């Protein structure tokens, strides 16, 4: 029923003044707005019958984080779902929260805050949702590094590629030499080193 309608209706529609959804390859109907206009555009969508909030996703780019929301309408006859897109600069990753419109946005925005560090203004309870509250960094950013977590291993675990790239030349050979001329090391520690080395090889 609905899919035939979608085909017949062409590939764009003006939902309200200045708010136009356009079909995009691979993902369906899309609406791209500036972040200042996000709440206004979302309100227009809600008024047009898009009453089910499905998710918000961040995408990390060097200068900015793109946000993609998906909303669905249980009332409309065609063009049932829309991807709402906006972009926030990394220097000031703030955007209006959509919780006042859809309660469902609550956990989804917390997830995006947790993993991307996007701050949703007006969110009632913006805390990390998956990770512990004292976690450092935002894991889904491309430049995220968890080096600070390996401090307890005296750096011995960091013999893998990533560490070698960060500290070129000096660090890596020195460590391997250290390992070779340390036969008095207790055997269990040597075993642990062995295991971690094997593990990182496998991953590569």
């Amino acid at each position, binding site marked *: 029923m609905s*899919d035939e309608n979608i085909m017949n209706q062409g590939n764009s529609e003006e939902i309200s003044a200045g708010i136009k959804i356009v079909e*995009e390859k*691979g993902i369906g109907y899309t609406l791209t707005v500036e972040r200042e206009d996000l709440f206004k555009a979302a309100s227009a969508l809600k008024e047009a019958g898009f009453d089910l909030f*499905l998710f918000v996703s961040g995408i990390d780019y060097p200068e900015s984080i793109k946000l993609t929301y998906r909303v*669905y309408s*249980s009332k409309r006859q065609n063009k049932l779902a829309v*991807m709402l897109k906006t972009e926030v600069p990394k220097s000031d990753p703030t955007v209006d929260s959509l919780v006042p419109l859809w309660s*469902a946005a609550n956990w989804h925005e917390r997830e995006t805050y947790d993993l991307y560090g996007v701050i949703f203004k007006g969110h009632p309870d913006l805390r990390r*949702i998956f990770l512990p509250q004292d976690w450092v960094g935002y894991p*889904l950013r491309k430049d995220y590094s968890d080096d600070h977590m390996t401090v307890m291993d005296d750096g011995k675990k960091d013999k893998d590629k990533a560490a070698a790239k960060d500290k070129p030349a000096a660090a890596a050979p020195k460590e391997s030499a250290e390992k070779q001329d340390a036969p008095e090391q207790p055997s269990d520690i040597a075993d642990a080193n062995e295991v971690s080395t094997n593990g990182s090889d496998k991953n590569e």
Partner: protein
Amino acid sequence: MGLIKMSKLEEMKISNHNLSELEKDLALNGEVESTEDIVTEELAIHFGPQHPSAHGVFHAIFHVKGEVVTKIEPDIGYLHRCFEKIAENRTYTQFIPYTDRMDYVASMTNNWAYCMAVEKLAGIEVPERAEHIRVIVGELQRIASHLVFLSTAGSEAGALTPFVYFFDEREGILTLYEKICGARLTYNYIRIGGVRADAPEGWLDDTLAFVTRLKKRMYDYDRLVLGNYIFKKRFIGVAPFSAEQALDWGLTGPPLRSTGVSYDVRRSDPYSVYPRLEFDVVVKYKGDNYDRACIRSDEIKQSIRIIEQAIEQIPEGPVKADGIAKVFKPAAGEGYGHVESPKGDLGFYVVSDGTTKPYRVKIQGPSFGNLQALPAMSEGTYIGDVVLTLGTLDPVFGEVDR
């Protein structure tokens, strides 16, 4: 009798200093006469993360006043493995087995949704026979998942017998899966552009025999669980949700359809060969725990209908699109694929930058969206019913935490 006592307790105001006196009275008379000067204290009870009824590693703090829950603070993330980050470091094909580990009660639909997103991204056409096989294994998966739901819903209400029956039936489905892909839980069967291998000889007949037998038995099972007097007493009218609330809280799947909203991805955004198959989207209207349970039993019957038709219509031909290398580079772009998984609207949003690895994979897990509504749904109900309400949302924590 137990229920009546609970409500009395709730009405009465309890404090520590005269609790023993109260208990004595309850034991002797069944009720207490004077409750004037008794003060109530709110308690915070930790539920989980390790709890037999928690459906996985779920931690929540229940604030209770007597037997009534006044506030629930869910705390999730114990099973968080950040699959979305892992996806960025694997090739498109390598990520399929990871999707098995999300909703591990319904791995097949996870494979399907992910592959569909990549197919949309790369513009890959899937052969007819593969689409039919996908529908058959996908609907078998729905039956298996709903059978697990019905058995656990029964056992949470104290009925341990159905558990044995339903797991026996599910075993039949796992055996069919074992024959078609070698695995019983993490299938990795649906691949980009089709399925891994054609169904072995006789598999379709076995499947048809299985669903025919199950169809007859479902009516007995309905009476065993949903028609049971105690089950009805525990489930009917508990934690009702209206359509407005359900939409506001972002429910999808059976919990949403139990409130009267007919949102089923198979109909509202048709994929695969579903437009050619006859089936009803099951909708209930009260939105209470009982409706959420019944809807799954009815969906099993619809899935049986779908499987019968798909087996009848399945054409001969290839089961995988040609020319898809194990490591392939889709052009830069975006793809969104979603299926109606047993839990709800399961979507994958894949962004490509033209390399062999996805730039971003966003997983829209229905369990995550559904679990979010638990506080709104069960605040004000008895603490003993919260576990049932949690059960009727049917969250799988591999998918909630991802």
